[in-house]
């Protein structure tokens, strides 16, 4: 079934042919399976979606594959969402994908801590206009 899973992932996240790789070709089948298995009913959802694929799914072109998946999405909504979640989880926590994100957006490929970011001082002059308006709260006295 690995080739079917790879085809499924490539259909869900096909990349853009330039900067972003397709999820299946990027080798995320095992990671996706593991992440799906880590949540209640996740493994069952992935198995059900794979079982619903036509045998020749991996030979279809992308538009045909998307048609197949949209039918499954409509019929098996909850399971399909579980598969999407596992797929996105695998893709966006993958170190190589995070390298691409860093290169394209500046979001560093490291955990938020312990490094964090600079804590610049607050510029109080930004508040001049607000202060000039005076109080706007209701007094109860």
């Amino acid at each position, binding site marked *: 079934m690995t080739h079917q899973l790879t085809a499924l992932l490539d259909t869900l996240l096909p990349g853009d042919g330039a900067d972003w790789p397709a999820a299946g070709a990027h080798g995320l089948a095992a990671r996706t399976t593991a992440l799906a298995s880590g949540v209640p009913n996740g493994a069952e959802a992935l198995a059900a979606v794979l079982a619903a694929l036509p045998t020749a799914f991996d030979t279809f072109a992308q538009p045909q594959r998307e048609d197949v998946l949209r039918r499954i999405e409509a019929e098996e909504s909850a399971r399909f969402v579980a598969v999407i979640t596992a797929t996105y989880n695998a893709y966006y926590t993958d170190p190589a994908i995070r390298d691409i994100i860093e290169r394209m957006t500046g979001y560093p490929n490291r955990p938020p801590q312990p490094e964090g970011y600079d804590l610049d001082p607050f510029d109080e002059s930004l508040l001049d206009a607000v202060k000039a*308006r005076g109080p706007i709260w209701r007094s109860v006295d």
Partner: protein
Amino acid sequence: MTQTADVVIIGAGAAGLAFAWAVAAPNLKVLVLEAGGFVDQRRAPSLEPDWELALQTTYNANPNVRRGPADYPVEDNDSAIRPAIFNAVGGSTIRWGAHFPRLRPSDFRRRTLDGVAADWPLSYADLEPYFDLNDTMMGVSGLAGDPANPPRSPRSCPPLPLCPATRRLAAAFDRLGWHWWPSDAAIISRAREGRAACNNCGPCGVGCPRHARASADVAYLAAAMARGVELRANTTVTKLDRSGGHVTKVRYVDANGPGYVSCGEVVMAGNALGNARLLGGIIDNPLFGKGLMLHPTAIVTALFDDHPQSWRGAFAAALVSQEFYESKKTHGFTGGFQLQALRGQGPLTTALGGYGLRLPWGENHAQEFAARFGRSLSLTVTCDDLPEYVNQIALHKTLTDRHGLAVPRMIYRVGENSQKILEFGIARASEALREAGARQIAVNPLTRNGGFHLMGTARMGADDKVSVTDAQGRVHGMRNLSIIDASTFVTAAAVNPTPTLQAIALRAGTAMREGYSAKRATR
């Protein structure tokens, strides 16, 4: 092991630990029982590359999804909003954004001012010293002088900084002539003993390894224990024994099996859901459980063409607009709302939808991700919520949890007034974000997972015919039972409740301590 106590507090969250510290005194045995365990924030998920996965699992705000060892099921089929609570030492402040606004004076006088709900049996002025005391304990960054609120004491730390996205929002508010102010945040911008200053990392909601972001355990636990308070974690209270107007025993189960504590005072601090599990059959007031208020929240998200890298900085504690906070006849509703800035999220959370819709799978996914990640800024529309009796916490008639306690039912629908506020607020938030330069606006008209502010169900009041507790949280008709969390709120206001519920807990704890002291002096 202690089997008697002068004061037993059930729940070690924001209210329970503040109360414990305030009530503690020499020769007074104060015991806190908490179903959850300790959370070591020094090892928070934000230290790991996969930190965003924790938001779906161990740090998921919904206990029905998280299913941690201390979580009990909540039946929410009849609620438009799902529960968002955390069961641990520190309670839901383990999982919060630490936005730290106070209720306003008018929030305590809605009957007199607007003819709705009821007046509180206490005032802003009554709470002010406890607000200040709590700010000192929690550690608050911010700036005094906000024209939308009464004057307040200087904040202990300067405000957290704005980022490029929130700066353009502030400028938009200025152009519209609307109020904005840097948030009071329970996140320190300067180091203090045992706590480093915030380093602007962003995901405060998964715990703070620097202890810059306060939580009840970080702020109060050590101080309470230094005063002699005993805390027992992983200890689930299963039953209160009652004899007449007295609670005589608090029964619990821990790793050693069942046990009980005989006690003088019993103080409930387990939130409206947790309290209801134990107080069925103890409080026979028909008002108990009724009038649940939740702050229905819409989230309006702007997407910018350029790339302001909006992931930098505390996700929920940048700035707030209270331009539309107070009642105004021309609005067509009573009460108002707060607009609270929310920064952009991490890459995975962005892909999964963040505050709005999940990114589409398929051919356009990569393009959509590139168009959204780091380019978003959101505003909450945090609505005032009237106490309507149809909104309530009830107990399931047949379902029980693993301890045999009835499963609480959250029954809530968005009231007509709240819906009007939401619609007006969404329009105003959209207007502000467009003024800030948004290319595209996305609206989440109601945050389904937004049941984080559980207020009401045990309203305080001077008249025992129309309230459940008095102003100190003492349950009418009971001699030694108090409720000191946001369950006692009379009105919801339109701001996050934690500073106010903690001020109420400090005031009630102080009064109880002084009561003990007076009794002993007269013996």
